[in-house]
């Protein structure tokens, strides 16, 4: 069936990028996802010779990973339309939800690296942009075995409760931090990542609000990994614990060294929104993929002599699926593109530190230019690292990311349930991805925060 692209900002260049991503997605990512899903032991997903590595390598070779790295670092962000990143991410989600997450989260430490005042760390971004072998893999190490939703609640007032203090701590000793503790088995890319965005507890009396943020190379002595997680859905996505035992983390890696950045403030609110908005794009697109398979099936399958697409109950079901999918898709793309559009807005003067002006302005340009636009950020590090502040227009964006994620994942789950019913036993045949899509969608309503918890935490910014 035909979809109209309701986005008036599409142009030829974007259409070509979209087409390139679509072909890669359908030819490489989708079949790899189906094959990896079937592996009984999740250790096989990351074994040598696994299709996973082909996906990573070819994604990088095609340059599709560059949309989230600024131009100054060898990426394309800022030099192409803000729609570029959402368009690529859409196609990955369309191909395979779990692998899309793996590819997406991979960029995180490298994208954050540009926020660092240290040139050496900022270079990570360029290394990533130029990596065509897929050897650089990032992860977001935030949740812990005993603190899952606590981190989500950490973005609102509730997060200051001392009982919510992170289990993974960093204690400053001279020029290093000594890091001890564990990140949860859910960390996406957890057992294969080379670099992490790592949330650490600095001041337990402040609960989650007492945490700091490090960029951590994962080859430091004392870091070990758990076994790959065996779970119901997104089985192609590697997940697993990361353990830290007396790890000496040089202080240059501590990006945000003062507790308080992760509270009821700009950073806290936006942080969830950024991750959530990508999830929104991914799963709205998975929902579309499910719908497309359902339409195709209904148009080609007869039951009791009648074409499914000619039955009124089936037509009603399909149209309702279409209505939900399109609503989710439009929302997700808009919210994500809005975020990337802010990256090309002009940067206003920053007075924080002259030495790191360049880095910080680039960083802000790339990621938090949203704050610039409203002209409220003058001293980013102070603003980000000190406690609750007055709500500003800046804080408004984050909740849209959350809305997008909740809407998209619930749509993906609903549509997959509906498609399962339509396919009946055919959903279980070996190369039909419908049943897998249901399991993948099932995980998405917990991934990046349980939907209800996200809603409650973010309701503070209504």
């Amino acid at each position, binding site marked *: 069936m035909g979809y109209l692209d309701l986005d008036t900002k599409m142009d030829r260049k974007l259409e070509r990028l979209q087409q390139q991503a679509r072909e890669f997605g359908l030819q490489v990512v989708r079949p790899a996802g189906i094959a990896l899903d079937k592996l*009984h032991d999740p250790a096989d997903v990351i074994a040598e010779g696994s299709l996973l590595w082909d996906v990573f390598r070819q994604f990088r070779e095609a340059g599709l990973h560059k949309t989230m790295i600024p131009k100054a670092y060898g990426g394309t962000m800022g030099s192409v339309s803000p729609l570029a990143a959402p368009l690529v991410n859409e196609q990955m989600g369309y191909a395979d939800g779990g692998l899309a997450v793996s590819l997406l989260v991979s960029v995180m430490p490298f994208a954050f690296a540009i926020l660092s005042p240290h040139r050496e760390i900022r270079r990570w971004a360029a290394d990533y942009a130029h990596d065509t072998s897929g050897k650089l893999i990032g992860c977001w190490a935030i*949740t812990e075995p*005993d*603190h*899952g*939703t*606590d981190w989500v*609640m950490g973005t609102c007032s*509730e997060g200051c*409760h001392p*009982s*919510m203090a992170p289990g993974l701590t960093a204690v400053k000793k001279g020029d290093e931090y000594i890091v001890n503790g564990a990140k*949860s*088995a*859910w960390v996406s890319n957890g057992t294969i990542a080379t670099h992490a965005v790592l949330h650490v507890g600095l001041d337990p009396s402040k609960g989650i609000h007492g945490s700091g943020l490090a960029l951590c190379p994962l080859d430091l002595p004392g870091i070990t990994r758990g076994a790959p*997680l*065996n*779970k*119901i*859905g997104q089985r192609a996505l590697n997940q697993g614990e990361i353990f830290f035992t007396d790890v000496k983390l040089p202080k240059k890696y501590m990006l945000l060294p003062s507790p308080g950045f992760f509270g009821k403030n700009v950073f806290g609110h936006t942080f969830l929104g950024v991750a959530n908005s990508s999830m929104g794009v991914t799963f709205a697109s998975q929902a579309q993929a499910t719908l497309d398979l359902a339409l195709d099936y209904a148009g080609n399958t007869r*039951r*009791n002599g009648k074409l499914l697409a000619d039955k009124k*109950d089936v037509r009603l*079901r399909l149209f309702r699926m279409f209505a939900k999918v399109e609503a989710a898709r439009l929302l997700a793309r808009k919210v994500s593109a809005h975020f990337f559009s802010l990256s090309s807005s002009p940067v206003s003067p920053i007075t924080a530190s002259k030495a790191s002006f360049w880095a910080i302005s680039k960083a802000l340009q790339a990621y938090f230019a949203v704050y610039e636009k409203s002209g409220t950020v003058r001293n980013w590090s102070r603003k980000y690292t000190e406690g609750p502040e007055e709500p500003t227009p800046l804080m408004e964006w984050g909740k849209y990311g959350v809305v997008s994620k909740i809407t998209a994942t619930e749509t993906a789950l609903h549509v997959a*349930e509906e498609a*399962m*019913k*339509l*396919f*009946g*036993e055919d*959903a*279980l045949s*070996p190369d039909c991805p419908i*049943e897998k899509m*249901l*399991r993948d969608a*099932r*995980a998405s*309503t*917990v991934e990046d925060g*349980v*939907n*209800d*918890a996200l809603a*409650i935490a973010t309701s503070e910014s209504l």
Partner: protein
Amino acid sequence: MKLVEMDILPGRETGAVLKEVKKFSKAMVRPAGVEMDSIARPGEALAEGSALWEVLKTFRKLDLHLMGIPEELGGMGGEDWMTSVVVAESLGHGDPGLALALYACCAPFAAAALSSEPGPRKLVKTFCKDYDCTLVGCMPPAGVPRAGKPTVFAKMDRGRAVINGSVPRAANAPIATHALVEVEIAGRNPGAGYALVPLGDPGVTSKPAVEKSGQRPLPQGGLAFDNVKLPKGFLLASTAAGHARMKRALFLREQKLLAAVFSGVAMAAFEEAQKYAAARIQGGVPIIEHDNIRLQFFHMAKDLEAARAAARRLAQHLEDKPDNGSALNATGVRCLAMETAARVVSEAMQIFGGYGLTKEFPLEKMFRDVRSAMVEQGDPDALALAAMAAG
């Protein structure tokens, strides 16, 4: 937070049986289901000495296979509705796939007990005494009365029926000795009946157990019949009225069973979530103390109690008026139970957060079980329309 049994429980004797069943389900059925679910190749779960056989044998040791078989053939006579529902609920609570396997294991023999011919009656007598499980029944899903067509055909040859055709998927096919299959009888109009097929016949080929996502402990496979000559009397219910009655009875029984089994799954999910929510600390307190979680529990309880009550009501009706059940009533009850189970399991999973998605906790398996039941035992909408057509 506690759900109480709202029905008047049966007398002391049945009460004792039910207690045993609950114990069996908890101590054996649930762990066997988990074990069989985790075996990569379905065939391996069926090997002699596996957990499956232990479950099948223990079920017989408890004499549960005698329910519904007349006393003169060695059975317990009629079953009371409450017992049958609570047994099914309990088994579903343990493992829905195994609950259905246990049902299919007995169903062909219970059907044979209705025959007046000496052949089938003798088989039933042997079945009642068969504590080693040398006789295992097998059955494809019972179709909605007056919907669908048989895919197996019988022709009469000197008083004995010869069977040809195939069924794509039948419960217990890979392990069974006897299958109960609906057949169209050639040369009679209208002509249909049920064949009780001994699967040891050389004309029978059994397709290997199929790989599937949910209800993995329920062994399933296809059967093909090539000129299988039935023993005398093994064509059951071959008059027009007899066939219609058996078809209706099998269908209604299956609806009742599925409704009860899936109410059991919903209960199990609810209880697991309850335990988890009391132990899991987030936000500095057990998560059961958060009002959003409490609200989830309330709605789960409300819905699952409604589904259970409906299943019992259907069972009671079928006991009082066995020939009077309507497809609409029965399908409604069964769909309510299925949909409720799907919703309750999904809610319970949300309460478990990430842990609910892993093999460490039973929720992810319940999710797969319920979802695959929805496709294997039929799309609720398609069932609903078939029921509307059947009246």
